[in-house]
């Protein structure tokens, strides 16, 4: 039975099995393919030019766009008067950024989706919030645009926010202790970027004996920098639990090209797609769906994007699906982890290869 995106957003956010996901998502994604083909001429041209399947018979056949396309082209399926907001990705100076065009409807869907996902782990009430970052990232918006936007986005799920780091990025012990004295005996929210949380918070807690056992940590931003320090998710979790008693720790994977479609970590340490999204791991040789347990390139599917053709995107990240429908704690579908960015092209030839790499 087909459901609308509104109905899907009202349904349990993590419970559906892979078969249910195929049945509910496929018609929604096929409808989005048709919608974007009808309202975004470049998208229609891409479908024709790549010989893509317009009506997929399974999720793995839904046509995808490479994520880099959003950096070079403004792809939009609504008229100029309906543009509500333009999102841009983070990027170091000189790098191209993605530009994602939102109408009111898509922005609303994204907000509702994010609320559904976050309340799944935070509960319905706004919790006192400890931000594992420095306030200067929202004062200095040009320098830390992405970090600032991420924190501001999460602050809608908390109240009475306290910043754990001072302007010099040092742990503000009096502020943290005051926060815990006031809120530490009932559930509270902590949010930060994975690397910041590790390097500037966890590493510096040392033996202070802080009790974070009532806390719920939500963190994101990737493991690349932590891999250099040989810290993986298991180490991250174990260290936090041992040092502070914190055990509700939720990493998430998401991107500006699909805001709201957040893949949230379960209690088993794996990431899971919400009801309105899915993930496909592709073998980088055959580009078919890779078998469970085999690493490949991550493709993300989301039923949210209405104003731009971003419902099926091939990322430049590598990941691995570990199991399907094997979770026993209420999470259905694919359990996956993100390995990191796909390695940059290593080609030879005249030196223009580097100019090309730098422009992508």
């Amino acid at each position, binding site marked *: 039975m087909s459901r609308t995106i509104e109905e899907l957003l009202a349904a349990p956010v993590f419970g559906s099995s892979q078969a249910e996901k195929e049945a509910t998502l496929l018609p929604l994604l096929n409808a989005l393919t048709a919608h974007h083909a009808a309202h975004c001429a470049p998208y229609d041209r891409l479908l024709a030019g*790549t010989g893509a399947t317009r009506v997929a018979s399974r999720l793995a056949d839904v046509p995808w766009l490479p994520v*880099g396309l959003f950096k070079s082209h403004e792809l939009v399926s609504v008229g100029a008067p309906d543009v509500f907001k333009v999102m841009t990705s983070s990027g170091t100076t000189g790098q191209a950024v993605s530009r994602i065009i939102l109408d009111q409807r898509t922005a609303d869907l994204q907000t509702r989706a994010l609320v559904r996902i976050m309340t799944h782990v935070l509960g319905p009430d706004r919790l006192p919030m400890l931000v594992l970052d420095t306030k200067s990232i929202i004062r200095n918006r040009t320098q830390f645009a992405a970090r600032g936007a991420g924190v501001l986005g999460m602050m809608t799920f908390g109240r009475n926010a306290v910043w754990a780091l001072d302007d010099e990025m040092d742990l503000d012990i009096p502020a943290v202790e005051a926060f815990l004295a006031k809120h530490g005996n009932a559930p509270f929210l902590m949010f930060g970027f994975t690397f910041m949380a590790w390097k500037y918070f966890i590493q510096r807690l040392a033996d202070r004996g802080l009790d974070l056992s009532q806390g719920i940590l939500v963190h994101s931003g990737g493991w690349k920098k932590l891999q250099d320090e040989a810290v993986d998710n298991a180490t991250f979790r174990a260290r936090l639990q041992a040092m502070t008693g914190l055990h509700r720790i939720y990493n998430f994977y998401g991107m500006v090209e699909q805001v709201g479609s957040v893949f949230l970590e379960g209690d088993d340490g794996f990431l899971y797609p919400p009801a309105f999204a899915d993930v496909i791991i592709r073998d980088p040789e055959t580009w078919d769906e890779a078998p469970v347990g085999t690493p490949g390139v991550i493709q993300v599917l989301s039923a949210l994007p209405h104003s731009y053709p971003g419902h099926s995107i091939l990322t430049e990240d590598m990941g691995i699906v570990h199991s399907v429908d094997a979770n026993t704690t209420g999470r259905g579908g694919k359990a996956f982890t993100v390995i990191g960015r796909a390695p940059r*092209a290593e*080609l030879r030839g*005249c030196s223009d290869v580097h100019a*090309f790499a730098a422009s*992508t």
Partner: protein
Amino acid sequence: MIAQSIVPASGPVDVAATIARFQADADTSLMPFDEGVLAIAASLSRRLATDAEARTFPALQALAFWMRKAELLRLRDAFRRLEDASRILVPRGTVFHIPPANVDTLFVYSWLLAVLAGNRNVVRLSSRMSRQGSLLCRMLNEEFHQHRDGLLARNTIMLSYGHDADISAALSAICDVRVVWGGDGTVNAMRKVPLPAHAVEMTFPDRYSWAALQVDAFLALDEEARDTLADQFYNDTFWFDQLGCSSPRTVVWVGEAGRGAQAAAQFGDAVAARIRARGYRVDVGASLAKRTFAYRAVLDQPVSRVSWVSNELAVADLAAMAPMDRGHPGGGFLFQRVVPDLSEIGGLLSSRDQTLAYFGFTPDSMRAFAATLGSRSFDRIVPIGEALRFDRYWDGYDLLAQFTRQVTIGSSQS
């Protein structure tokens, strides 16, 4: 100023001291095609042709073949013909070579032509050296050290350094010829570094190359001949991941449209089969870059359809012969178009276009075609299989002539 010396000895060196010693050792009496130089080149050729590891790199075998004794003697004879009673050719002095970062055999061609012309040489090598590049340097060192008179060791420095304008300036200041390979970026950067007033410069910017095949001639081939042609095309295209300036990127089929489509499809399959047989692979990053490039091409260029013959070979059909931006991801991506006559591409060519590799045309018809292009393009028109064959004539220059000075000798008119 510290650089990494690679040849004739490896290790960090002070650039100023190295330059001072290089100038103190100056051996300015060397003349073109010195016997000692020829002997070392021939010996290096034998070394490359017989070394087990070198034999696994086809580009090194092509280099060995190009610099074998018989070929060098032919080159000497051709060079001698440039001289006559009223003119002799002498070395220019010191040549400063800046080879491309990653066409890792080119520095030897550039260096050797300059050495054969009797020059002393400074070569800036990339610090990101591939296995075959490192192997070449090791063999050069072994060769240099076997020749105890130090003929080449005294006259050649090869070193690597980062983007250090001071070092580039110091090396430029002592040269008589500067040779800048490596594309627009390197050329533009080096143009800012002054040269002595008398010095000359050759620049090799980013280039783009094509292939043209005659449809009926291709369809007339038996299976074996098709495979041979596909193999030659493979060599032209994939030796340097299709990023060598001379590797074809756009393929033009000349003939009737329907038969052309048939020929293109058969050729694509044959090339994909050669790619498999040779075990050529692209990594994930290159594959993703190629996908992204393909999608952008559909939006930005007159591409009607992109198909993946295999992961290593994507083919984009052009809906029209319209101006193209000549960007390219490398790693197996071809634009293709069937045209009734080769003259259709003439109007699209520009100074970016370097090599046309052809099949099924007579050299005379290619000569006639080139003559219609005026100053527009193509420095080389060669049969498929020879696109990467290096030659003293490159990008419109005669390198041997450029590495020498012409001394004219007049006689009294009485």
